[in-house]
């Protein structure tokens, strides 16, 4: 019995050794045989890690429609001229799912570089996706650009040499909020509510600094952990202090819980501005019925923005309309950010005319381009801030809720569509 076992064990080790050797060879041989991938490949490859599934996948519901459109726009007249190939090469994109998981994002990022040999990395949507991929690109010296990633969060992983971020700055939000709050007559008492996570804590600190000098009194009853089911304590605290402005930063399900409870306890503020939770129309609808009416949020991108695609000349409005007619769904803000990044990539390739990584990096640094999400010009820290404003959700015609741009904060080129209206007025409360 023992002998038999011994033999099988030895055989197992032998087999394992052969397999290991085979695996080792198969992965190293092609690399010896092929001196330069770019020469053997007749297209340009962009690596695109995206959170297709998982908690932050709401950012990528417009993908792959927007990716397909952008790639088609770039390849409209045969692609981009590359010197080494001596001709125009079409651009291809490889989308991989990060499952909204940072370690998975880093993993797929390295695989795109090592196995697929991507020429440029283009990554989008939240720190959980962008930060790990940008770090991997730094390590392997691959040019990388990101969108839909707050520049403040991006810089935490820096300093960056190879990675660039073209996105919004949370510092701009406050200016937009203060501007739109001026449109509604209130007692200037703000009930602050923020989730106890990095976003929520940063929100609290930033807003207190901005609100108190502007003459607002802030009632802060404390951070709450994500997943809290009941907010009775906070709401009764606000009632006592006569809060008229609710100012929050939290995830959509948590906000839906608070807001419904506000209605149950008959605490309806005149203004309800919430970061993070009210970016997408489906999240406003999910609060239930018309409860989302009059709530407000930051506006990351909006069809009214006076920007055009550098690839086709289409306006922001055209892009949103094209998405709506193709998908039958309402446009969402990531359309601008996800498309805008492709514009940067195409522009860089056109100027560099090569797939040499260092030349591409320099071309990124020298970007000076007007895109659908605003003008892009990276500073010495590799960031370029795109314009944001403030929006209010009102009753829509085609879809239940429609966001109107009610403030333009630090970016006066954005056209304000309307003045902010008190929730009391919208709901007919005296």
């Amino acid at each position, binding site marked *: 019995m023992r002998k038999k076992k011994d033999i099988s064990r030895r055989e197992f080790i032998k087999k394992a050794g052969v397999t290991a050797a085979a695996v080792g060879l198969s992965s190293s041989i092609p690399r010896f045989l092929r001196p330069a991938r770019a020469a053997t490949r007749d297209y340009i490859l962009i690596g695109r890690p995206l959170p297709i599934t998982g908690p932050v996948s709401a950012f990528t519901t417009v993908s792959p429609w927007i990716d397909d459109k952008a790639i088609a726009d770039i390849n409209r007249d045969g692609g981009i001229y590359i010197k080494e190939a001596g001709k125009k090469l079409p651009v291809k994109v490889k989308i991989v799912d990060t499952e909204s998981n940072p370690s998975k994002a880093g993993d797929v990022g390295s695989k795109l570089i090592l196995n697929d040999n991507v020429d440029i990395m283009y990554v989008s949507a939240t720190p959980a996706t962008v930060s790990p991929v940008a770090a991997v690109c730094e390590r392997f010296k691959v040019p990388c650009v990101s969108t839909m990633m707050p520049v403040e969060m991006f810089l935490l992983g820096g300093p960056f040499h190879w990675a660039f971020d073209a996105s919004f700055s949370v510092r701009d939000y406050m200016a937009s909020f203060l501007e739109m709050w001026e449109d509604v007559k209130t007692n200037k008492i703000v009930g602050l509510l923020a989730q106890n996570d990095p976003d929520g804590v940063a929100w609290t600190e930033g807003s207190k600094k901005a609100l108190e000098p502007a003459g607002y009194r802030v009632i802060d009853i*404390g*951070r709450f952990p994500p997943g809290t089911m009941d907010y009775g304590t906070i709401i009764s605290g606000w009632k006592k202090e006569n809060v008229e402005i609710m100012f929050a930063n939290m995830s959509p399900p948590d906000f839906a819980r608070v807001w419904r409870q506000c209605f149950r306890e008959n605490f309806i503020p005149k203004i309800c501005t919430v970061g993070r939770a009210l970016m997408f129309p*489906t999240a406003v609808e999910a609060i239930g*019925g018309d409860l989302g009416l009059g709530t407000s949020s930051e506006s990351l991108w909006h069809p009214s923005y006076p920007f055009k695609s550098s690839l086709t000349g289409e306006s922001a409005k055209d892009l949103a309309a094209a998405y709506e007619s193709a998908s039958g769904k309402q446009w969402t803000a990531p359309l601008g950010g996800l498309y805008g990044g492709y514009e940067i990539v195409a522009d860089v390739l056109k100027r560099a005319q090569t797939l040499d990584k260092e030349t591409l990096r320099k071309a990124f640094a020298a970007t000076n381009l007007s895109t659908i999400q605003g003008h892009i010009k990276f500073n010495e820290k590799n960031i370029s801030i795109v314009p944001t404003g403030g929006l209010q959700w009102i009753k829509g015609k085609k879809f239940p809720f429609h966001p109107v741009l009610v403030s333009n904060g630090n970016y006066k080129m954005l056209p304000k569509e309307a003045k902010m209206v008190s929730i009391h007025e919208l709901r007919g409360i005296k």
Partner: protein
Amino acid sequence: MLSFLNELKAPITNGLLLGGLYGIIGIGLSMIFGIVRMVNLAHGDLVILASYLSLVTMTFFPISPLLTLIVVIPVMALIGFIVQYCLLNRVLGKGMNPPLLVAFGLSIILQNLLLLVFTPDARTLMTSISVKTISLGSFLNIPLVYLVDFIVSLITIALLSRFFNRTYMGKAIRAASDDEGAAQLMGINTRTIYSFAMGIATGTAAIAGVLVGMTFTFYPHTGPEYLIIAFGVVIVGGLGSLLGTFLGGLILGLAQILGAHFLGAGFQLLCGYLILLIVLTFKPTGLFAKG
């Protein structure tokens, strides 16, 4: 003193009513824990699956979410039966880990299936009762949806305990859970019994799912949130005891809301878990465990 009590009446009512909802979320997990001796890690996802099923039913028939239970409970019970019969029964008796892993796998599959079919958008089962309050004069305001949650949970528990004490199937399930070998000798096919038990447990998950969907919003990924609540309820209440699980829910709900009332909103979840820790230290079997 009087004003102190006056201030407490709202948090206590809310805590108790929320606790009723917690109880119904926990009951399915507790049953399977007690009867099949298996940790069903997919319980939270089954709850959310039921919320989605109710949503689908509502798009076909414009009825109240509570009425969709007529469709959702049988469908969920059937799903539970099939899962136990075809999947979990195969790995029972092979140690602790295989059933745990199968349930975990099921949880991941359910989440991604829901994501694929329903997209990551937030959903809710909208009814007019979601934001209504019943006012008892100037004395107390009771959120109607919490009250409905509580009453439905209470009815479910009462029906279940009647079922377990009065019917042949209920007695057979209890027998199989008390002593598998002896039950088999008495001519009970314990594997089939387990499948029925799972069917009933997912039936309660269906009720929990509809209530959760009416009270809060849900996503394909919210399942684990409710699994954690269910765990808390089961640990406080004790295994296998229906009434214990319900009371466990009440204690957890009260602990959270009173904790938030006295210590601040940040302590809400912590207070619930502190109660868990205290129970685990002094009565690891749970407060109301039988036997």
